[in-house]
């Protein structure tokens, strides 16, 4: 499933992290209405999104520096 191209593979990995984070957020908003739900939303969901976005930006920087 993962692409042979390094840049595309990084994008796929970032996308997987983002999908995971967004899924956690959607589940927390739907079912987790207490303090624990709030913590999972901010902690697990937020952290996955942060990782995914960082990985995507890092992929952009690497592809930019690799191109020159």
């Amino acid at each position: 499933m993962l692409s042979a191209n390094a840049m595309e593979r990084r994008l796929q990995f970032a996308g997987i992290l983002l999908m995971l984070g967004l899924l956690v957020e959607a589940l927390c908003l739907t079912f987790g209405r207490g303090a624990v739900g709030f913590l999972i939303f901010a902690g697990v969901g937020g952290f996955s999104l942060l990782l995914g976005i960082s990985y995507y930006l890092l992929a952009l920087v690497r592809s930019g520096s690799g191109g020159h």
Partner: protein
Amino acid sequence: MATPYALIVLFIVFSIVLVSIFVFRPGITATRGGKIMAFLVLFALPLLCFGLGGATEMEHSKSTKFCLSCHIMEPYGQSLRVDDPMHLAAAHFQNHRVLPGEACYTCHTNYAMFGGMKAKFGGLKHIYVYYLTTPPAPQDIKLYEPFNNRECLHCHAGARSFEEGAVHTADPDLLPAIKANKHSCLSSGCHETVHDVKTLKEQKFWKGAG
């Protein structure tokens, strides 16, 4: 599920679908349009989702229902329905001096700069104490710091019943002392009964308007 929640969840699901396109077909980023789309979907959209969801969660965390979702807080929820006007929290809740849906937050937030954030960090401390240490019995729960008159004055300052109240004006030094937080509203013997959870079994309860 309330409508705003449903809309935000739908938006998040839509975002997941868009992100999945880049996971399964990463080759579309080869074109200029694909790169712009990838930036929007892999950067802007997740941030927007987190912002929308976070704002909704923050708003929900102000609700009385949220505060009372922890078992240890149940007696405090019951104390809001004590049928005795001398019980400060009950009188405020039952007479809508605070919004019933945000009764806890209205009095227990901090009406200073970044007070809302400070209140939320206090909430995180509650969760730490509740889940990772041995929590005290409900009747032994204490505030982290003495209740500041500022929280009362946020609503009562300027109100006729407060500024011209017979007890408040009997001593000319009293009102300035209250406003300077030198004379506590709660612990100076004036409005001392707030959440008397120790005597709940002996109390009568108001069943509510509905």
